[in-house]
């Protein structure tokens, strides 16, 4: 197992190196010029040239890449070109905010998704099952910015129950912060829940048909024990994989949801950076997102092994 983990970690490093080259390549061909963003359209060509010189934009691409990559090895993600401050603290602040939103959403997706999947499986082809599938498909079939705005209009504008966005004042207590998190979390949860609940449902249905469940029932075990004690653990295995995939979706969703809810996380930082062609900020943010995704996949695989003793990685 240790060898496996080490090997996977090494692979992640490899993936991140390849990703860094890709990110760097793509940001090089982005249209527009950060120097113009910094000095504005009034600037004379000499001023633009001076800014390009200062930012090292005229160096060959490989020199620029090496400057960036070697900085990362030293733990330095570079300097935001537009804001003229180090990238790392900007990303760190945004990451903490995003992590809170992502973890909360992930927990909701997992708990509610699995619960709905089990309910739908146990009551399959009945009204509850249809209601669950309608509810979950509704979430996935319309983009998250739409649900975000619907929730804002409903809960903030008309009912005045919840704040429309942001993270609360800097001196806000946890209760207030939690209130700010409810709508973005609900939006993300609603758009992601279908994956988990549908998969849990089908895998649960299959498990409930299996021989060992039939045996358990024949032994006279109460239905609750059969479902939660015997069937669920096995039925959850495929769900774990889909949850790992959901982490990817979650990160994509965060970019949109954070914009709608003015939530200062990685997603908004990335959009800010892209709008302004702030290359180090774009590169740093995407690299961190890629790293999170890779690690989430590793964790999913390890959990898979943990839940299914038949699988032994070597």
């Amino acid at each position, binding site marked *: 197992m240790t060898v496996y983990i080490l090997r996977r970690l090494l692979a992640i490093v490899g993936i991140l190196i390849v990703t860094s080259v890709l990110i760097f390549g793509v940001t090089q061909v982005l*249209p*527009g*010029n950060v120097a*113009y*963003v*910094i*000095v*504005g*359209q*009034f*600037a004379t060509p*000499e*001023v633009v040239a*001076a*800014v390009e010189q200062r930012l090292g934009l005229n160096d060959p691409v490989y020199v620029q890449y090496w400057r960036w990559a070697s900085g990362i090895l030293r733990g330095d993600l570079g300097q935001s070109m*537009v*804001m*003229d*401050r180090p990238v790392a603290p*900007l990303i760190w*602040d*945004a990451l903490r905010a995003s992590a809170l939103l992502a973890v909360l959403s992930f927990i909701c997706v997992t*708990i509610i998704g699995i619960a709905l999947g089990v309910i739908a499986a146990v009551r399959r082809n009945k009204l509850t099952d249809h209601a669950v599938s309608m509810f979950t498909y509704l979430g996935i079939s319309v983009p998250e910015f739409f649900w975000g*705005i619907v929730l*804002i*209009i409903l809960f*903030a*504008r008309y009912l*005045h129950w919840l*704040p*429309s*966005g*942001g*993270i609360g*004042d*800097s001196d*806000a*207590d*946890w*209760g*207030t912060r*939690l*209130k700010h998190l*409810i709508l973005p979390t609900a939006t993300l949860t609603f758009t992601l829940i279908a994956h988990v609940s549908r998969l849990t449902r089908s895998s649960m249905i299959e498990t409930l048909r299996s021989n060992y469940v039939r045996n358990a029932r024949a032994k006279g075990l109460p239905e609750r024990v059969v479902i939660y004690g015997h069937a669920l653990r096995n039925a959850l295995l495929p769900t774990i994989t889909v949850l790992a995939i959901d982490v990817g979706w979650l990160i994509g969703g965060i970019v949109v949801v954070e*914009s*709608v*809810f*003015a939530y*200062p996380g990685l997603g*908004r*930082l990335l959009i*800010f950076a892209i709008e*302004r062609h702030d290359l180090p900020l774009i590169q740093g943010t995407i690299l961190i997102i890629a790293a999170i995704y890779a690690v989430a996949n590793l964790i999913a695989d390890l959990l898979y092994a943990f839940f299914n003793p038949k699988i032994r990685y070597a």
Partner: protein
Amino acid sequence: MKRLFGWILAAGLVATMAAGAAQAEGTLRVAVPSNVNTLDPAKTKIGEEYIINNLVFSGLTESDPKGQVKPDLAESWTASDDLKTWTFKLRDGVKFHDGRPLEAEDVKATIERVMDKATASVARVNFSIVEAIETPDKNTVVFKLTQPYAGFAEILADRQVRIVPRDKLDTIASKPIGTGPFKLDLFQPGDRFELSKNADYYNPDIPKLDKILIRIIPERAAQFAALENGEIDLIWDVPPETISQYKDNPNVEMDSIATSTWDGVILNANQKPFDDQRVRKAVSLALDRQGLVDIALFGAGTPTHTMIPPTHPYYNSDLPITKPDIAQAKALLAEAGYADGFEIPLYVPSGRPTRERLGLGVAEMLKPIGIRAEIQRVPWDKFVKDIEGKAAFFIDGFYSRPTIDTSIYPWYHSTGSWNTTLWNYSNPEMDKVLDAARAAKTDEERAALYKKFQEVAEASPAGIIPYVLNHTNAFSPKVKNFHSHPMMWLDLREVTVE
């Protein structure tokens, strides 16, 4: 499962209780749509940055809502007879937010920094006429100019020329310290600004607010919800297309003011067919100004002759706004050799909604005189690089400038920097009027010359400036004494929140 529900319930309860906590008294919460790039006043370029500039810093002079120059850090000033030497007396007892007194050397360092190419300040161009800055004593600053310039006190009210402490130049972008009515306590990039009252502000009666919280909320629907929800008190710069939904709401107040910010139809006289004065006049005659205000701005603007807004004392109210005259326009086109009209691409920058709509309106209004304009939307980056200054026919737009001279001269004088980039207009009479206005000694003389300028611009158009935009703010009835400013920044010195 029961335990989980218990937790959720408890969390909800805590959240509801926290929401009841009272706001600090005298706190104004503002929503703006975009993040800022810099806090260094000399380098600012966008509306949100100007808001911070104006709250944290003061200028030597300031521009009042009527566009007239008023004392700010300079208590008084005098100009020599030849308008080439300007002496400013600083107000006594002004302190920076760190407690150090303001001195003439700070003013000198500030302006020299703006003039320095390396700073890349957009205001630099206005100060190329400054030859030397002298500080005979701690309270006096003398500017020596290379040419007479009557509007010099006005350009010192510009957004980028806010006075900064000479010993904090290196950290001004991260820790802005000024002499303005509010101190910046916190900037969370992408999220918020928190400002508090400057108790040492030179006018002890203001500001009235204790705190200002500025939140960056890009989504307009979310801004509106936050206003209705009581999370914020004021939405800065409501876009014209959303004004109607605020108007119907009894719990929202609106305040609008005409600015000198304009959108325009650029006709490049260096290229056919706009090299012919008659073609430019024909285009001008075909366009219905009020119609364009309705199409592009949903009515939230004011038809004009040039960028001088009708609210300005120099506006020529005796000069009627051109009314569409299709017959005359067609006759002029025929005279110029385009009896059947012509076909031409009309470039509009995408992502600038008012300008996109203006383009569509113009294209429709030109059809009756036979000009078939084919709209081409171009992304902003490409627009700045490939269209602005190169194409024959395009829609552009510009923020108001600090003075009438800086608003006009670069666009209409044959040597003007924007004229030579955009429409290449050359009219000796126009040059004469603009040069004379620069050297005019009295306000009456200047007013007469700028009124003449509007006549000349109407008679022989460079291009078309159909309107100036209104700047609109929406706020809660709890907010008192708030007035929108034509420079689009927030003057919150007199504002209170009930």
